[in-house]
């Protein structure tokens, strides 16, 4: 009686658990054939929509009018980058929370919660699966843009863009932990999810530069790490003048730290509260 495993044994076994979580998520995903069709077609649809939208609005993929706001004429490249990075925003913020919600609805959450694996390991596994999925969609969008549209993106600069997206993603997962705590207590948050995602998309420079926003709304964008990631990427690619590239990287690191700490603390509080109220598995 009373025997347990050492911390190093636990760490190693939890690393293996991440592999099993990825495998389980993939198996559950592929049991629904419509999902396979979705990921093949979806990148084409989203990119072509952006292309036709540009053609319809300004009659071309570049615009002198757009340059007066954004510092670049290349409307299409500007918006494709915003779109590709935004894919990570919604999956990182909501991926873990949605996964917890799915387990609640399926009735498996308590079975997971009662195992000795730490919640962080479970979140890392789910986040990795979602991250791989988002990376695939973003990569396909950029690839299709390079092959089909008049946009040149297939060069080494893509690795810097990936690096910046990587810096962004930690702060987004911090937000994700925060919202996962909400899911644990308040359950159905689909409308809230849509509202927050739309608000982030509206406030931050995903589809247009900040200069088109009224000053009070543009001020709010300063509190969203996505703003700095997009500014850094566009600055690096020469799509306008946005300020210091390295300053943006520093700000991203600061956001990573703050959001991860605050998100994790809130999740721990929410889990404790859910256990006190007995609502972990309720719908």
């Amino acid at each position: 009686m009373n025997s347990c495993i050492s911390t190093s044994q636990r760490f190693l076994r939890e690393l293996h658990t991440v592999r099993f979580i990825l495998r389980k998520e993939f198996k559950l995903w592929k049991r629904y054939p419509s999902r396979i069709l979705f990921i093949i077609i979806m990148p084409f649809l989203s990119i072509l929509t952006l292309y036709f939208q540009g053609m319809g609005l300004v009659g071309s993929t570049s615009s002198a009018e757009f340059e007066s706001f954004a510092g670049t004429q290349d409307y299409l490249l500007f918006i494709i980058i915003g779109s590709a990075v935004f894919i990570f925003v919604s999956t990182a913020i909501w991926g873990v929370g949605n996964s917890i919600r799915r387990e609640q609805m399926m009735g498996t959450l308590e079975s997971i919660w009662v195992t000795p694996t730490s919640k962080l390991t479970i979140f890392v596994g789910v986040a990795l699966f979602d991250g791989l999925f988002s990376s695939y969609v973003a990569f396909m969008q950029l690839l299709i843009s390079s092959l089909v549209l008049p946009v040149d993106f297939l060069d080494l600069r893509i690795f810097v863009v990936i690096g910046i997206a990587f810096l962004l993603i930690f702060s987004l997962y911090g937000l994700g932990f925060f919202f996962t705590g909400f899911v644990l207590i308040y359950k159905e948050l689909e409308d809230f999810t849509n509202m927050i995602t739309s608000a982030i998309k509206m406030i931050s420079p995903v589809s247009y530069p900040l200069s088109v926003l009224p000053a009070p709304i543009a001020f709010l964008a300063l509190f969203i790490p996505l703003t700095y990631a997009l500014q850094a990427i566009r600055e690096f690619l020469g799509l306008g003048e946005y300020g210091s590239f390295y300053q943006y990287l520093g700000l991203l690191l600061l956001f990573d730290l703050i959001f991860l700490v605050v998100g994790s603390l809130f999740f721990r509080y929410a889990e404790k509260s859910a256990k006190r109220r007995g609502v972990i598995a309720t719908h």
Partner: protein
Amino acid sequence: MGEDIAIRADDLTKVFCRNDGLFNRMKHREKIEIRAVDGVDLEIRERELFGLLGPNGAGKTSFIKLLSTLLLPDKGTASVNGWDIEKNSFEVRMSIGLTLSSERQLYWKLSAQENLEYFASLYLVKSDEIRQRVEEILEVMGLIDQRDMLIENFSSGNRQKVALCRALLNDPPILFLDEPTIGLDPSFSKSFRTIIKNRINRKENKTILLTTHYMEEADQLCDRIAFINEGKIVALDTPRNLKKSIDEKEIITLELSKITDGMISELKKLEPIHDVENITSEGSNILKVYTDSASSCIQDVFATLISNRSQVISYRTSKPTLEDVFIKITGCGLDE
């Protein structure tokens, strides 16, 4: 902690607020509290098969969830395998296996083997031992030929067996089985009980805490039983001693057209009747008469009923069961 105590609860209490949540609190000013577990003191010995018997909503599942670290207590403490449920929740979870009464505790779109391999990794079984361990357990449960079948295609009974396999994955010393045979047909329940008693408890020496509201199940399986009602333990002993605690040797159960207080008072005065209880439920008027000898008082009982203009629809005599003990102690049946 005593040498052979596997589970201990001291004044363990869990209170739920029905009007929790912002809008409910605005609507009802006063908190509506439900004491799901109310000051439970309990010790379960190592290798014991212990039953928690009570009606729906008595607090059985809440008690198991407290011990499994799925709920936090509001008062009191408990230890499982020597570990405190609040301070050492990781060690507690390493020491237990749990099956819940819900059918949907497995992934229906995964096969039995895929489910068990995934959960084995969550139970931190060494990765190079997972496949072998899963196959061993499936073999023991007689499910090895169905290992690649999706859970959605299993019968309810076999799903419950897979859930039991999952609880055994990390070879825990303690098992919590919450209503393990609920919804299963009688023959399957019987074979399931045999596995629990003979294989898991006797052969593998595991301590088992089992909740049920089936008295026969508790009677057949358990070394000791605690009756739980409204969150409180109201009796605790071996099934034999609990049944002995009823002085009466026989019980006459009568279904009548009507029951009146006057009729009950008259019956209570008859010899050798010790007690009469009205356990009317769901439109049936049921009376239980506790006596030393049914044959010596049955005529007087019928005469009293006729004089009170109550018609006997059916009657039977029987020896006391655990349910009778439960009714005697709590005044309500297990189905209520």
